[in-house]
C-alpha cells in the first residue's frame, strides 16, 4: 500500500468511529462531538490527498480550511439549538436531555 492508502484508511476509521458515536449516543453534546470527529476525518483525507496523490491540485488543503470553519459554524448552531431547548424545558439535568431524541 502506498502512503495515501494508509492515510485514507485512517480517515475511514475515524469517520466510522464518529458515525458510530452519532448513531449510538443519546446525549446531544456527545453527538456534536462525534460529528466533529467525522469532519476531522474528512480533513485528514483531504490533506493527505493534496500531499500524496500524484497530479492532484493542491485545493485539498484549501478545502480543509473551509471544512474547519464550517465545522465551527455547525457546532455553534448545534450548541445554540441545544441551549435553546435547555431553556425551554426548564431543566438542568443533563440526562433528561435524551427525551429530545426519540
Amino acid at each position, binding site marked *: 500500500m502506498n502512503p*495515501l492508502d494508509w492515510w*485514507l484508511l485512517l*480517515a475511514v476509521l475515524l*469517520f466510522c468511529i*464518529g*458515525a458510530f458515536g*452519532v448513531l449510538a449516543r443519546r446525549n*446531544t453534546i456527545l*453527538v*456534536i462531538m462525534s*460529528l466533529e470527529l*467525522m*469532519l476531522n*476525518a*474528512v480533513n485528514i*483525507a*483531504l490533506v493527505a*490527498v493534496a500531499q500524496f*496523490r*500524484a*497530479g*492532484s*491540485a493542491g*485545493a*485539498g488543503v*484549501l*478545502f480543509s480550511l*473551509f*471544512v474547519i470553519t*464550517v465545522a465551527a*459554524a*455547525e457546532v455553534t*448552531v*448545534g450548541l*445554540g*439549538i*441545544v441551549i*435553546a*431547548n435547555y*431553556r*425551554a*424545558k426548564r431543566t438542568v439535568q443533563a440526562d433528561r436531555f435524551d427525551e*429530545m*431524541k*426519540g
Partner: protein
Amino acid sequence: MADANNSVLVILPGIVIACTALLVFMADTFVGRRKEILPWIAAAGLVAAAAVAAAQWLDVDELGSLWDLVTGRGSAVFGGREGEAGFAGMVALDKFAFYCTLLFCVIGVLTIMLSDAYMKKRRDAMGEFYGLLLLVIAGMFGMAVSTDLIALFIAFELMSLPTYVLAGFLRGDVRSGEAAVKYFVNGAFSSAVLVFGLALLYAASGQTNYAGIAEAMSGLGADAESGLTVVALVFVAVGFGFKIAAVPFHGWAPDVYEGAPTPVTAFMSVGIKAGAFVGFLKLFTIAAVGLGDIWTAALTVLAVLTMVVGNALALPQRNLKRMLAYSSIAHAGYLLLGLIATGASLDSAGSSAVLFYLGAYTFMNIGAFGILVWIRNRRAFRYGLDEVAGLARTMPWTAIGMALFMVSLTGIPPLVGFWGKFYLFTAIVDAGMTWLAIVAVVMSAVSAYYYLRVVWYLYFREAPEGAEVVADDAGPALGSAVAVTLAALGVLALGLYPSPLISAAQGALRVLIGG
C-alpha cells in the same frame, strides 16, 4: 480565468441576497417596535436579486424582449453562448443558474408573504426569521452556481445551517425544539457523509473543479470505475438523499415537518429540495458525467424506495401537515426520476423535467401549506383531516384552493402537477427505463387516495361541532392570502399554458448539457 470584477458580477444575485440578509439583521436592532418593515426589506432584496439575474439572463441570451421569453418563442435564441465563470472556475453563472435564481426568489417571496399570518404573533423574532430565510436562499443560489466541490460544500452548508434554526423557531415549544434537534443531528450527519464523499471524489480524481474531475476521470479510462469512485459517489448520493429526505434516509422528515412552523415547513419542502436537486444535478451531470452507471444505479434504488414508501406512509395519515410531509417525500422520488433519466442518457429531457417540476411543485406545495396557515389564522385548527370536513360551506374559497392544490399534487390534468409528472415520466421512458415510469404511475394512483380524500372531506362531509369561522386576534393576514392566491393562479395558469416554463427549463439546460 476571469478577472475580479467579472467574478463579482457572476455571483451578483447572491451578493444582493446575502447583503439584504445582513441589512435585515442590523435593521432589526434599530427599528424598535416597527418590525413590519423587515419583511418588506427582505422581499425587496429578493426582487432586486431576481431583477439582476433576469437582466443578466437577457444580456447573455441576447433575447429580443421579455415577451419572447414569456410566450415561449424565446427558446429559439436560448443556448449557444457559454456561461460566465468566476473565481478561478469555482462558480459559473449560466442559464441554468438564472432559471434557478428566479425560482428561488419566487419561493422566497411566497414564503415571506406566507409567513405574514405567522409572524404577526411573533414580532420580536421577525429579524431572525427573515434574515435566516435570506441566508438559506443565498445558499440555494450558491448550489445553483457552484462548479467546484469546495463551493458546493460551502453553499450546501449555507443552505443547511440557518434551516436548523428556522425549524426550531418556536422557542419554548417542545415539538419545534425537538424538530430542530432532530433536523440538526440528521442534517449535520448527512453533510459529514456528503463531504466525505466529496473528499473521496477528490482522492479519486485529484481535482475539485467539476470540469477537472470529468477530465481526470475520462483520462483514467476503465480505471475510473474503481472501488474508490463507487464509494465516493455512493457517499455523495447518501448525503444528497438525506437532504431531500429520500427513503431510507427520510426518518427525520415527518417529525421535522410536523414540528417546524408551517411556513418554514412549506419552505423546507420546496426550497431546500430545489436547492439540493439543482446543486447535485450539476455535480452529477458535469463532474460525474462519465460515471453515469454508478450514480444512476444508486439513485434508482433511492427513487423506487422513496416513491413506494413515501406514498405508502402518507396513506394512513389523518394529520394534514404530516400527510403533506410524507407526500413531499414521495415527490422527491418522482424528481429523482429526472436525474436518473439524465444519467441513463444525457440527451433525455430528464434534467429540464426536473427544473420544470421544481417550478410546478413550488406553486402546488407552498399553496397547500399556505391553505393550512390560512385556516389556522381564521379559526382553531390542529391540522386534523376531520377538522376540514365541510369546509366548502364555511370557507368556500379556501376549500376551492385546497381542492385545486390537492388535485394538482395528484397530477390530474389540466393543472400544472400533471405536466410536471408528464415530463418526468416521459423522460424516464425515453431513457429506456419504462419499468420505473410504471412504478411512478402506479404510486401516483395510490397518492390519489390520500389527496382526493381531502377533497372528499371538504365537500361531502358534515362540518364538526365548533368549526365556525373566528377571526384571528391579530387580524386577517393579507400576505398569506395573497401568497395562496398567487400559488393558485400559478397552478392554474401554468397548467393551462405550461410552455413558457417548459421552454425556460429547457433553455436553462442547454448550457449544462452542451446541447
